[in-house]
């Protein structure tokens, strides 16, 4: 009994010293208290056009007819793709800042008619723009705050496997390519024929840089040592995508499609799935990532 008490009295501090050492190594090192992630992500967007100022080559001869010649932006065939890389820095259990490098396809179309009872002309304008997006965002993760320190049994802190989050950000876009196709149809006595069709690059009609804001939310799922994210965002551009000083620069569009761009920005909903890989590990041998 005495020997047992002796052992407990003298050996416990030894164990305690050993546990303290692990504790310090894993938890008091600031390096271990944040995490970096890189990943890939991709998805689809649904784009809507918000006209700011309307412009048209076709104009009325009577103020009552003015609305007839406004472009009619369509809500179908507006789905594009978005894909790219993502990088994030988690500096707190609940907070993340990040950026993406994405290719964003913006598709939209509009109709413009020269109406009449019997002989009418209609134009169908399809657009396919590609932007290189560089957003920066701030993400709040909804999870219980847990003690980030490893407990004395040296077990990993418990991080929820599924974490919902909300995010807001600023988006900066660089125009990469802008293509437009036009089809003209003439209706005569009920017979409709397509008499003109052509495509044009319209880079020169657009501002090379645009900006906007976005907000959204999603979930982060743990899949082993990596994460799967799903997110839904709403984006609102706040700069005019049309270059107002080059509105009339494309003579072919003016001469054959009677078209100039409205001043406009885009609104879009996007759905994305991504894979995140943490960059900091407790043990590079076993690829045990730091989870905070």
């Amino acid at each position, binding site marked *: 009994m005495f020997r047992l008490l002796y052992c407990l009295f003298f050996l416990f501090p030894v164990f305690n010293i050993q546990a303290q050492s692990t504790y310090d190594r894993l938890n008091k090192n600031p390096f271990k208290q944040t995490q970096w992630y890189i990943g890939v992500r991709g998805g689809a967007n649904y784009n809507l056009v918000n006209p700011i100022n309307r412009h048209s080559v*076709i104009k009325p*001869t009577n103020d009552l007819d003015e609305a007839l010649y406004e472009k009619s932006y369509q809500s179908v065939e507006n789905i594009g793709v978005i894909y790219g890389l993502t990088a994030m820095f988690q500096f707190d259990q609940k907070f993340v800042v990040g950026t993406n490098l994405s290719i964003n396809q913006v598709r939209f179309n509009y109709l413009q008619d020269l109406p009449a009872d019997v002989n009418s002309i209609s134009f169908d304008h399809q657009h396919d723009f590609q932007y290189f997006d560089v957003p920066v965002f701030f993400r709040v993760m909804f999870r219980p705050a847990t003690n980030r320190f490893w407990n004395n049994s040296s077990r990993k802190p418990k991080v929820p496997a599924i974490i919902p989050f909300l995010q807001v950000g600023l988006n900066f876009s660089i125009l990469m390519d802008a293509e437009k196709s036009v089809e003209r149809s003439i209706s005569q006595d009920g017979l409709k024929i397509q008499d003109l069709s052509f495509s044009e690059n319209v880079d020169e009609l657009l501002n090379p840089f645009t900006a906007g804001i976005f907000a959204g939310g999603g979930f982060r799922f743990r899949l082993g040592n990596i994460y799967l994210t799903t997110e839904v965002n709403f984006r609102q551009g706040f700069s005019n995508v049309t270059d107002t*000083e*080059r509105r009339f*620069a494309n003579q072919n569009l*003016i*001469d054959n499609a009677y078209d*100039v761009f409205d001043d406009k920005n885009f609104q879009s909903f996007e759905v994305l799935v991504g894979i995140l890989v943490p960059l900091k590990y407790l043990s590079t041998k076993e690829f045990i990532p730091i989870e905070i």
Partner: protein
Amino acid sequence: MVSCQKDTEAFLPTEKFNSIFDNPTEGQNYEPIDVAQTEDGGYLILASTNSNQVFVMKVSPRGEFIWSKTMSSAYISPVGNIVKNQGNYYFIVSTLTDRTAVLVEVKDFDQIVEPLRNYTGYRRPLAFGYLNPDNYLLLTHNDTIGAVLSKIQEGFAMEWARGYDEFEEANSTLDDYLDSNTPEFFVGAYNNGSNIYFNTLRPDGMTMTYANDQGIETGRISATDGDGINSIITSNDGKGSFNYTLGNQSFFANGTNLANNDSTYISQLDGELQPDRLSNKKALSLSIELSATPYIVNAFTTVDGRIKLAFYSDNSRELSAIEYVGGNDPMEVVKIMATEDQGLVVLAKIIMGGVKQRISLFKIPKEEIVDLF
């Protein structure tokens, strides 16, 4: 590739625009006739409808629709030019009943278009224009003597009128001529009104007549058959530039001495053949100045339905630059005009999809013209 550089010239919306004016009414078509720049930098367009009614439209300096009026069907067949007097604008129409020439006043600010004065006894107006900045010239076709030239004073009273020919059945002769030809009627003056010219049908055919400041004939350029002069611009050095058709071919005589005291024939103009011009459509010239260098712009409708603007140096008379305007739908030039900011405005007729004949107005900014050279 990321698009950061642009090759084309940038323009503010007021510097360049392109407008086509449509009407959804089935069968409604327009024949543009003239355009004038208004004091606010906008444009006043005169046109006739396919029912020969008088249509006036105001557009903004950016080519946007502002207002329009269609006159009562009691007035038909408007003729240019639009002239300006004390802030208002004027042109000539005919009465439906007996084709009496009527002066119409346009009050732009009030959006009013109304007949102001009947020139009773002066029927079938063909052309209206400036004698000098304060007086005007009216060319009519009287049903008993044919061409009549009148001087209209600043207050729009008629000062004098001159007839020129004994012309039997003058009206029906003109009708017959118009059935198979597309002549241009015009009237104007140079040397501040000391010399007058007018182009109309006279007994021998389309004739451009020179007259003194009292309308007394001093010379002429005669044509026969369907030949005739289409347009003229004059300069104070006694020279003129003519578009004309001869033997169904089109010519441009640039910088020809104005033989206003001689009787000559159109074949003596010795112009340059314009093989790409559609000879039965308008051809017009205009003097402009670019960077202190004078040019003559000659505009006409090409055989492929576009508008060609040919820029000639006014010093060397050599062709300096060419610009084509138009696309798939055929266009016809109606009027070219220099704007206050040294751009060019073109009034044209366009036939869209083969079904809609519409008014087109577009502006070419000075910078774009300079880039052509």
